């Protein structure tokens, strides 16, 4: 088994783009289990970065570091530095509640609240003390998530009554309603049908001008369709019988898919394993 050195993959973003999120030697433990080791990653502003790799290699775990959702898992422990707009966000002194307003998240399974479509959108705005016009906010967010035309006549109906694809776009609308700077998406299309998937992908293109997007996907076509950069994660077996994830290679998406530097990456993107 080859050693999991991150090699040139950390190759930070060469051009002088401003970096929205930065991971420096981030490792995450669940209990005593080292789940992901030593991840270095620079995510530039207004780009879409995709995380790919076999399941269990720590993509979701790393994604959750960027909005401190790992704090909610009692046994999770994060080491290393994570920077957002140049400021460290991993310390005790940073309030994760404040951070999560600026770094939104969309989950694998659509999880609208059992409330009306309208209240789903206004929930985040209310708790964050939004002062503006709520009707306008709802329309703007739903338009932003390409859902407005489908739901504008039933805003008072439960969000759970929508189809899976619509629910996921409602969750995206809910996330952009609080005007975050970054949107993290953890396999947002894995529970959706192909047509809804295409809609969400198109939506991500539109959102790129306003937000930085990090998306975890198990679908390599999706990564190549939507992302500017791709990070390939892999896992190796540890002596304790567990698995330890690490970042193999991170580069522009074309490079990862047409000319990867690492053999693992080449095997993975050509479908030879995973």
């Amino acid at each position, binding site marked *: 088994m080859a050693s999991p050195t991150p090699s040139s993959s950390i190759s930070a973003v060469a051009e002088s783009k401003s970096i929205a999120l930065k991971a420096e030697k981030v490792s995450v433990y669940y209990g005593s289990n080292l789940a992901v080791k030593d991840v270095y990653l620079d995510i530039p502003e207004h780009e879409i970065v995709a995380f790919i790799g076999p399941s269990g290699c720590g993509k979701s775990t790393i994604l959750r570091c960027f*909005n401190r*959702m790992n704090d*909610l898992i009692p046994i999770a422990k994060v080491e290393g530095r994570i920077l957002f707009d140049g400021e460290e966000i991993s310390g005790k002194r940073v309030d994760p*509640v*404040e951070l*999560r*307003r600026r770094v*939104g*998240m969309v*989950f694998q*399974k659509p*999880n*609208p*609240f*059992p*409330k009306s479509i309208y209240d789903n959108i206004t*929930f*985040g705005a209310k*708790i*964050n003390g939004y002062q503006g016009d709520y009707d306008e906010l709802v329309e703007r967010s739903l338009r932003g998530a390409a859902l407005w035309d489908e739901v504008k006549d039933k805003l008072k109906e439960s969000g*759970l009554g929508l189809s899976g694809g619509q629910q996921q776009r409602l*969750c995206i609308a*809910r*996330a952009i309603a*609080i005007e975050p700077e970054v949107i993290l998406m953890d396999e947002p299309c894995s529970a959706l049908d192909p047509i809804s998937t295409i809609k969400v992908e198109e939506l991500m293109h539109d959102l790129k001008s306003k937000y930085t997007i990090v998306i975890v996907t198990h679908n390599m076509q999706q990564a190549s369709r939507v992302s500017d950069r791709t990070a390939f994660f892999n896992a190796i077996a540890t002596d304790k019988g567990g698995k330890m994830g690490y970042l193999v290679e991170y580069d522009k998406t074309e490079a990862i898919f047409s000319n990867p530097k690492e053999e693992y990456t080449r095997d993975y993107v050509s479908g030879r394993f995973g």
Partner: protein
Amino acid sequence: MTADVTGDIAPGSWNPKRDRAKMVQIIVKIIFGAFAAISIFTTIGILGTLIFETIAFFQEVSIIRFLTETRWTPLFASKQFGIFVLISATVMIAVISVLVALPLGLLSAVCLSEYATPRVRKILKPILEILAGVPTVVYGYFALLTVTPFLQTFLPNLQGFNALSAGLVLGVMITPLVASLSEDALYSVPRSLKDGAYALGATKRETVVSVILPAAVSGIVSSLILAISRAVGETMIVTLAAGANPTLGFNPFVPVMTMTAFIVQITAGDAPHGTTAYKTLFAVGMTLFLMTFALNIFSFWFVRRFREKYD
């Protein structure tokens, strides 16, 4: 099946005892069916007696008297049968107990399911269970001999037997029920929903108040209704602490008589079989049954109406 697949296995080495399995199956079905039937017939028997004796009662006392008279004196020479005298006491005590049990039970449920560390949980849960295991007669004496004297120190016009102490202590008694069932309801709110709230920048309190509690409301309400049914049917505490003085109205400071307390009074004394007093017992029992039955129907309807389906 093609011959070459089965060909490897000698045909004689498999001989499942299908007939015996079928026989056992049938016998088991009959046994379980019999047990199910016993409980159904018992229920029918109880209901039947209740209905039969209640009809007999209403042949002697008109239903209009039962519903409109303002005194409850079935054992006196001048008999009156105003059931609302007993209902008012039952309802008042149940309301007091819910006023205690709802906040206490719900807060402990929220605390246990959302705030408590595993260690605190380990201490709190058994305490709640002990509370649920205290015999009601102990609660009754506690209400009569401890709570009432204590309350009298600052409520001087509180009488020795009163609805207030009975209601308060009854509330403590049903708190574990509310707490444990509400906790189940809170616990079953999907993790993904909480994550959704946290990811939008909600604090723990905001998540609990705006997402978890509303999502669990059907379970909380049904736990509450079950607790009310228990309170309405509770006998020992009210008999010991609330007195045996049928009083119409909602004054918690004076002795009252609940429906259950009346039933105890009649059954403890010996009302001869077939007398009006004896039949009154069944009319009151029927009223009690209808009340709890209505509560259960409501709860059933509410849960079906408001339960969210997450898949």
